[in-house]
């Protein structure tokens, strides 16, 4: 039993050590040459534009259902007109960043782990190194940059679409006037909320892509290993998104509120 615990602890420490090594190597690659701009642009397209549909749908339906549920609760207090306030505060501070990050984890984190994992098991990563290319610079850094920059952009789009989704339900079903809904949306937002909604996606984007890259680069065991890595990237990425979201929220509350 003790031996099992010891093995598990060693494996966990090794994973953390390798993750930190990867992040350090990416940091070094960011400030030194060579840099592969074409790969960065490709990843912006793959991660950013490629995730747009799923993020738009997620944002719209989340905003809509939030308006529906809030409407029911607010009716008990005769405060249905304040539905915009609840939608905006929830979308900007929590649901926008977290749901976007979770959707991107499912789509991008798994894709990165599968792509890098299959490159590892088919020796394409070794071939890259043999040809004089650092895989961190060529494969990991472009994905990290795209993740850190595109997840906040996707979150902003998701939040905006969520508010529109909430507006559609509020106006058509809850019969709240258009101007009242949008006035409440603005009234429900404080500067600190906006900062929170802006800062969190940067951290979440970093977490999603760095975990995807780490898991993918450490793939072993052939095609079965690639499948395992893909699952691990989604599971670890999703849990990390929720955990990091909590700690960043806590930190921002201490700093800003």
């Amino acid at each position: 039993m003790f031996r099992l615990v010891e093995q598990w602890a060693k494996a966990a420490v090794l994973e953390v050590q390798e993750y930190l090594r990867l992040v350090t190597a990416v940091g070094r690659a960011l400030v030194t040459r060579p840099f592969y701009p074409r790969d960065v642009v490709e990843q912006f397209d793959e991660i950013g534009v490629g995730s747009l549909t799923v993020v738009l749908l997620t944002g719209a339906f989340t905003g809509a259902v939030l308006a529906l549920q809030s409407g029911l609760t607010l009716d008990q207090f005769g405060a249905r007109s304040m539905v915009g306030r609840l939608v905006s505060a929830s979308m900007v501070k929590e649901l926008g960043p977290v749901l976007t990050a979770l959707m991107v984890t499912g789509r991008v984190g798994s894709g990165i782990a599968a792509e890098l994992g299959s490159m590892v098991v088919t020796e394409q990563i070794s071939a890259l190194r043999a040809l004089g290319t650092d895989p961190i610079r060529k494969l990991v850094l472009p994905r990290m940059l795209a993740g850190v920059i595109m997840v906040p952009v996707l979150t902003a789009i998701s939040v905006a679409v969520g508010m529109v989704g909430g507006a559609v339900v509020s106006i058509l079903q809850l019969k709240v006037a258009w101007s009242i809904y949008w006035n409440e949306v603005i009234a429900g937002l404080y500067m600190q909320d906006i900062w929170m909604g802006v800062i969190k996606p940067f951290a979440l984007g970093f977490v999603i892509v760095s975990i995807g890259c780490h898991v993918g680069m450490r793939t072993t065991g052939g095609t079965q290993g690639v499948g395992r890595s893909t699952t691990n990237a989604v599971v670890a990425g999703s849990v990390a998104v929720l955990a990091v979201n909590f700690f960043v929220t806590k930190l921002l509350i201490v700093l800003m509120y």
Partner: protein
Amino acid sequence: MDYVTTRRSPELDEALGPGSPIIIFDRVSLAFDEKVILNEVSFTLIKGHTKLILGASGAGKSTILKLILGLLRADAGRIWVNGEQIDRMREEELMKVRVDLGMVFQEGALFDSLTVRENVGYKLYEETSAPLEQIDQRVKEVLGFVGLAEYIDRMPSELSGGQRRRVAIARAMAAKPRILLYDEPTTGLDPITALTIDDEITKLRDLEGVSSILVTHQLRDAFYVATTTAVRENGRERFVPADSKKADEAEFLMLRDGQVIFEGNASELRSSKDEYIQRFLS
């Protein structure tokens, strides 16, 4: 034109002239956890010669190539490549050593998202500032060398196993490295396709002067490469039996459980009295 060859001092160039060692393994050992992969392996590859590494699966053959490239790090011993001691080098320093090395991986390891042209010219497109027309010309030249010029715009998934290996050879030789490493290049191929790969290896050694290490457990291919020489007559290549001097330049190294159990030429290997070797050759 040399595209990415390392700059060496005239003294080192002279020291690495004909007949001098280009790769040295000095009592190299490697283990993963409890499992010993290589145990005090020593050998020397002479410039322009071929080293044929034989052994059963798991004997540590491919590991030797990965150590030469710096893809793995030895636990003990010293490794020199092209006059540089590489066993304690950092990754950035190893990049400079790899400039002069080409590697053909077991399954080709072609980049499946790139075309044959992009695969073959990868090193030149990405890691040099050579003009695009010049790179294109070189890509066509090496694809012509391996007889696949018409496949230049295909994707790797559209190629057969043998064609993929030949593209991998073209990719390895595109930047004109002085050392080529082959990791089981004929495994899983039919005998006729395997023979075309053997011919490419022989051509590169005899017509281009490339030093090479061939890891294989295909005895037929190993003996063919060791005992055949490529000659060019009136612009056409021919493959003829090597004379005894040329055959001596191809040295066999046999591994068993990470240890060298034989080192010598083809005829010495055939006449070895070692029971394991006899069983391996039978």
